[in-house]
């Protein structure tokens, strides 16, 4: 673990313009500390996915830079893993769950015996022991997203980046996956960056929340979430801090959306 004075992830004046059109991201600067659960929220169409692609190294920003542990990121880092919204599209339908989860290890040339034991361990962690031989399409949506989370965790990343990971599952499954994510973050002392349009979810899970505006996306504010480390689906959502934050972020987003483009 690096010391807390240096941010794990830092975005400096990040801008992205696709050829010739108006900018999508405009001068976004923010830092995420080691072990922090950090969410990025904003109105739909705010360029959250573009931001995520830039901060994971999948896409080069037009201006500015992303640093991971102080080192500029120009391509995906082995310290970082990604979970996508659409599990049906990010998992390989032709490969068993075991092979799907083992793929990042294969990419690193980890020997087969070690792959098998690490896959079994990480599947147990997400509550899916013994499904190695099944295929993704034989599992429910929530289980498939657990597989995607297991695949992201199998490399023991320092930073886990999640793009709307619970947007395609039902409400009950969503709560289970939220709590699973929170628990995994604490067990592994990971840094998590969650991109979501769901403000409740962001408040429930996060230590801090960045609020983006739209057209182009600028950083409006970064909100602290003083809800403590222990969160509970029923009680956390009932406390006044939760309701206040939720209302404050919602009105900020409504304000920026109301502004003329």
């Amino acid at each position, binding site marked *: 673990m690096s010391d807390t004075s240096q941010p794990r992830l830092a975005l400096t004046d990040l801008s992205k313009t696709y050829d010739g059109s108006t900018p999508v991201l405009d001068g976004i600067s923010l830092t995420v500390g080691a072990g922090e659960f950090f969410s990025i929220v904003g109105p739909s169409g705010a360029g959250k996915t573009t931001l995520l692609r830039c901060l994971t190294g*999948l896409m080069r920003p037009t201006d500015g830079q992303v640093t991971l542990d102080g080192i500029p990121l120009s391509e995906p880092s082995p310290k*970082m893993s990604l979970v*996508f919204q659409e599990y049906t*599209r*990010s998992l*390989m339908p*032709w490969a068993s769950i075991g092979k799907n989860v083992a793929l990042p290890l*294969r990419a690193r040339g980890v020997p087969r015996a070690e792959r098998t034991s690490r896959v079994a361990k990480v599947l147990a962690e997400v509550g899916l022991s013994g499904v190695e031989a099944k295929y993704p*399409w034989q599992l429910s949506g929530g289980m498939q997203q657990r597989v995607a989370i297991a695949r992201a965790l199998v490399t023991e990343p320092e930073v886990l980046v999640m793009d709307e990971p619970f947007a395609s599952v039902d409400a009950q499954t969503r709560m289970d996956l939220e709590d699973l994510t929170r628990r995994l973050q604490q067990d592994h002392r990971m840094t998590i960056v969650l991109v979501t349009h769901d403000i409740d979810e962001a408040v429930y899970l996060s230590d801090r929340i960045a609020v983006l505006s739209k057209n182009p996306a600028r950083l409006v504010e970064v909100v602290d979430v003083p809800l403590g480390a222990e969160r509970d689906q029923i009680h956390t959502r009932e406390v006044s801090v939760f309701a206040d934050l939720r209302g404050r972020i919602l009105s900020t987003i409504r304000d920026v959306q109301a502004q003329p483009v």
Partner: protein
Amino acid sequence: MSLRSRVALGLVVPVAIVVSYALWSANAASPYFPPLDVILTRFRELWLFDLVASDVLPSLKNLGLGLLLAVIAGIPCGAILGRIRWMGEMFGPLLDFWRSVPPIMLIPPLVLILGIEDSAKVTIIAVGSFFPVCVATADGMRQADPTLVDAARAMRLGPLKTMVDIYLRAGSPAILGGIQIGLQAAFVLMVASEMLAAYRGIGYLTMQAQVTFDSVTMWAGTLLLALLGFTANAVFVAIRNRVLSWHTGMRVSRASS
């Protein structure tokens, strides 16, 4: 519908044709349409199994070898054309041209250049079935989901592993379809090249029977070709269904959810 009733229903028309022909030809006394039992007797005399080693196996060996070469060359070429944009743009028109030309057109020039030995036959079959495999592979490169490609990049899967584990697997339904078309082209080329330029083989013997008005031998050869073509395709479909069981399973599970 159960498999058994589908098979039974599918057999109705072929069996009706064979029975009608047998009944009609028994008394027809036509020089073109000999009685079925005469054809079957000749079939047994020639093809079970006197001429198998000299005239069937070499032909099938040419077929298998030619198709294998087409697959070995066609998949990498298609992958390159499908993945590297300027290569695709450069060679696209040639592939489109080739698609619209009957593969047997290859036979006269290649026979002129290469002769009528087995190696020439293998070349004709390989060249003719290369194009469908190549075109289908190039098309198949587009089947990989961009999200999965992003996931592969994020986990730093190298270019070769991404090609093998993502692009080729995602494109495998298209690629196997291309190989099936390649197999059909290979079969046509095997028979046609033997009919036009050979000194042995099923196509040669059948064509020789035709030009010497030996209609019984001609029909026996035609029957063998039909059975071989049907069997080759059936074996291929069985293999394909096995390889693509994930694809079928995925579609069934998505349709029912």
